[in-house]
């Protein structure tokens, strides 16, 4: 029996999503068959040390893959490092800044309700 890839219109792989500095969305409901999920990458260093944005109608989770950054949102300032995460509510103004470098994976989806900002420290959640 041969195994052949099913013919599909859907693009399932998106290559090299970590190539650009700043904040860039690679996968959204507009460019993929995801119904809700948005994936963006935030890569900052001395050349691009800061980004600002509004979450708009989307809740957003950031996972820090490497480096360290300061996140200002909802009147709070938090510093997160490797494998820490932060949950950002919808309709929130956000500023992310680094003194050296940071690489964040951002996961978002549109939501009706506003849930509170939450921080998850890796050392506590490590399993």
């Amino acid at each position, binding site marked *: 029996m041969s195994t052949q890839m099913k013919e599909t219109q859907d693009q399932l792989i998106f290559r090299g999503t970590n190539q650009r500095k700043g904040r860039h969305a690679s996968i959204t409901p507009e460019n993929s068959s*995801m119904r809700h*999920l948005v994936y963006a990458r935030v890569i900052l260093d001395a050349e691009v040390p800061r980004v600002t944005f509004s979450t708009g109608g989307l809740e957003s*989770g950031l996972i820090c893959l490497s480096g360290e950054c300061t996140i200002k949102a909802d009147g709070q300032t938090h510093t997160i490092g490797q494998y820490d*995460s932060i949950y950002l509510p919808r309709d929130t103004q956000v500023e992310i800044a680094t003194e050296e470098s940071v690489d964040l994976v951002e996961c978002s989806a549109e939501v009706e309700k506003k849930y509170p900002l939450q921080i998850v420290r890796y050392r506590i959640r490590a399993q």
Partner: protein
Amino acid sequence: MNITLGKNVEAGRILAGFTTSEPGHWTSWPPHEHASILEELYVYYDMPAPSFGVQFVYTNPDEPEFIGIVRDGDAVIMPKGFHPNVSVPGHPINFVWMMAAHREVEDRQFGVVTVQPGFDQAGSGLEASLKK
């Protein structure tokens, strides 16, 4: 597997975390799917060249929607289907996984999966996460 944005966080749709494998091993095994409640995507990280993994996405293993080599920085979406992957000898496969619930809050459930028939004798391997 590390669940960073799971039931420990109050949210509407999103769930996320990261998984690292032993070199040469499979992850997301036994193969499972959760398309009725959650869509998912993987983002591969910390896999410097020449490392690569192989990602599968299939509903019917004889007619897979995707089988392909994945490298550092690539992302694969899984609107539906089973989605195991494997690393090459000497190198791990590492990825951030993120999911969005189709119905806000109601479908935001971790570990509620269908295991590929034939591989379900020992459960899903995700039972412990259901208790958290």
